[in-house]
């Protein structure tokens, strides 16, 4: 942090704005005031939530945090919509929804202290993406504070809406480059009658074949994840399947899964399933860096091989129905850039979800961009953040 900046900001807007060294507004209006003043003064800021996912080492004049935007503003059970401030954590959201028998079907990597805003800004979906879709499909609209302090409401709070341009999509996975997400309208689901997790362990080729069989059989799953031993905390590779729905339906599908795959599955009890999910969430941040890839499902096996050969040992998660792969470990910038180039030749994007600033500065969250995208992105960034107030490395120096 630049000496005196936070204090100067607190002097102008009130000392209550500070939480430790961070500027942590307690309302959207305070956030807007802080952003406007910082931009006016030419201060650069880094965004943070509760500080549990991204690293805190980007160079910036101040840290602007959503950690005190913690209100669940409304829950509408009949409409399956909740409106929350972006600093609400995943755990807090779950607790608020539970009495209504509702849930937000996003199981992001990282601890339960991660904020909803962080999950949306980084688009970090977990295994449930298989059944419920990516993060961008799990919210209907958002309120964003742009660097000059304007507050922009985009999208809406109904499940179908094509009025105007779909600006919320820019913020899902935009890594905060287009402003601070302050409020969100979340799309909810009713808690299913039955929610079952099955686990199989074995060697990777056998589990890959089983996953292919499961996918081809059309068994109705909400997650199908292949996990390396480091990811699952086991001695062998694991294949995890999750089924949600009516009790009869999930029991029938579980039986079909066993027949289709021909491998031994064991059903996890409720507590075991919860702790298993906790393990997956935390091993996804076991290394200093975490990145995700998107490949076609038919290319998962070869992509896993490439990942292992280039990035080395780490915790690996492969969404067998979605083609979303996640890896967490320690990787050098040169290694990652080489991997990204190799993957780009196969039409597989690599997005860094969290990493030390040295790696992000070199490689960028997205790296070099595809045909024609660079100029569009440059113009978008210039539009939203003309002064370059937000410290975020989308492209990197050597992407």
């Amino acid at each position: 942090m630049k000496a005196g900046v936070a204090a100067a900001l607190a002097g102008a807007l009130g000392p209550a704005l500070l939480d430790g060294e961070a500027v942590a507004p307690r309302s959207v209006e305070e956030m807007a005031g802080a952003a406007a003043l910082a931009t006016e003064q030419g201060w650069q800021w880094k965004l943070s939530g509760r500080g549990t996912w991204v690293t805190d080492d980007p160079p910036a004049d101040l840290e602007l945090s959503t950690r005190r935007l913690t209100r669940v503003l409304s829950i509408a059970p009949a409409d399956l919509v909740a409106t929350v401030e972006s600093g609400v954590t995943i755990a807090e959201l779950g607790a608020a929804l539970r009495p209504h028998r509702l849930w937000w079907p996003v199981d992001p990597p990282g601890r339960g202290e991660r904020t909803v805003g962080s999950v949306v800004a980084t688009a970090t979906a977990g295994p449930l993406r298989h059944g419920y879709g990516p993060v961008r499909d799990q919210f209907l609209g958002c309120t964003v504070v742009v660097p000059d302090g304007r507050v922009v409401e985009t999208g809406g709070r109904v499940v179908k809406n094509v009025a105007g341009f779909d600006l919320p999509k820019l913020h899902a996975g935009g890594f905060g480059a287009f402003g601070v997400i302050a409020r969100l309208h979340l799309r909810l689901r009713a808690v299913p009658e039955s929610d079952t997790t099955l686990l199989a362990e074995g060697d990777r080729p056998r589990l890959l074949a089983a996953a292919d069989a499961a996918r081809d059989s059309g068994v109705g799953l909400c997650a199908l994840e292949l996990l390396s031993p480091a990811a699952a905390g086991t001695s062998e590779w694991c294949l995890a399947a999750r089924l949600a729905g009516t009790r009869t339906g999930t029991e029938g599908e579980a039986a079909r899964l066993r027949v289709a795959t021909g491998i031994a599955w064991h059903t996890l009890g409720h507590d075991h399933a919860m702790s298993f999910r906790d393990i997956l969430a935390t091993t996804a941040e076991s290394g200093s860096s975490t990145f995700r890839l998107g490949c076609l499902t038919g290319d998962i096996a070869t992509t896993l091989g490439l990942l292992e050969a280039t990035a080395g040992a780490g915790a690996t998660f492969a969404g067998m129905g979605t083609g979303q792969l996640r890896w967490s470990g320690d990787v050098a910038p040169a290694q990652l850039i080489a991997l990204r180039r190799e993957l780009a030749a196969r039409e597989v994007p690599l997005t860094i979800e969290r990493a030390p600033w040295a790696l992000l500065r070199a490689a960028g969250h997205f790296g070099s961009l595809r045909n024609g995208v660079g100029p569009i992105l440059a113009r978008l960034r210039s539009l939203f953040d003309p002064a370059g107030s937000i410290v975020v490395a989308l492209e990197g120096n050597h992407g």
Partner: protein
Amino acid sequence: MTTSPTPALTADLLGALSRLVGSRWVRHRPAELATYAADGLPTHESRPGLVVLPGSRSEVAAVLSLLAERHVPFVPRGAGTGLSGGALAGGDAVLLTLTRLNRILRIDPASRRAVVEPGVINAHLSQAVARFGLQYVPDPSSQTACTIGGNVAENAGGPHCLKYGVTTNHITALEVILPDGSTATLGSPQGEPWGPDLVGLFLGSEGMFGVAVEITVRLEPTPRDIRTLFAEFTQLRAASSAVSAIIASGIVPAALEMMDQSCLEAVEASIYATGARTDAAAVLLVELDGAPEAVAAEAAVVEPLLRANGARSVTVATSEPDRARLWLGRKKAFGALGRLAPDLAVQDAVVPRSALPDLLDQIAAVRDRLGIRISNVFHAGDGNLHPCISFDRRDPRQAAAVVTANREIMEACLAAGGSITGEHGVGSDKREYMPRAFQPAALDLMCEVRRVFDPDGRANPGKVFPANVCREWRRGDRQ
């Protein structure tokens, strides 16, 4: 009604376009242009200056480059089935009709992807992939005519979008030609973007960001089992309550559609009759799909819910002919309603599901006060209303009543926390409601985002935003 003056474009441009695509693919005679003066919405008309039908992506790029050099506006158009007046061009603009780009370029059954040109007809894609046990899910009612490119521009929906999502949820990559003739590759075959989600931003941009010339779509397995329940209600509110009860149960049907009595009467008097009694106040069509055990279990929950909420009868169709008959009535409802009067204005708006009963009451009040016939056929599961107004545009009183009814219905939807459009787009029809739907800062920002793609504002000009609504974003006041 709006009618633009006749073409102001030059003979020189006509010659240059003819050299690029061949003279038979450039339309300029008044009778030819008249056929492009409307889309599926009868309340707006505008005759384009020229119509050009390129036959390849390179021709599209060449045409757009030429128009950029000459500062000529253009309007992309698919099959012209849109319901917002979005694909209408004025006399100073070229209508870029993409129906000749109608090839399915690749089908990858293993990865469940297909790559298509924008002029491919929606239903043709599902027919082409059916042999692999796959389907393209978004199914607008016009799916036998509308194009995938048009679906992309409007982010089209359809009955089965309740469970599977709208067009944006099924597009993973786009090759686009920007208004200056340059190209950009958005998204990836799997769907993870190279950078921010520009595919998501492009979807539903109503032809104002450029032209998608190659579209990668996600395919879904054909459901193993499908069960369609058809429930008749004597009270409209009871049918709405049943919708809420089903959604609250945690079951997400593949489709959950409602027709009111007025619509039902029109359907049952047509060749699309379902066999329902026309004294029903409303009927619900609930489709469950998936694994046989799951479908049976869900049906065992849904049927009692329907009865508990007042359904006087529930018919369950499991055979394909029975299902097809029920769906024909729903899918062809607009056609059946077309028999009631010379013109039919199909509206589109969304409300939170809990507001459906009150909104239907308000629509009935508008109907009674204005003395017009409004029929409702809509996607009840996601609160997406389609009030259909039967009228005769030659009668000024009726034409004025349609405008009043539309405005009052839109205002009621916005007051209920809804949206002015769920799947048809804003186009020419709903521009005036945009300032009521969005704060100035959001409108300004949308206008500027458009300029990122189209700095000159030549792509589909005059749509989505009312004239003079866009202020200078960089100088805008803080909200």
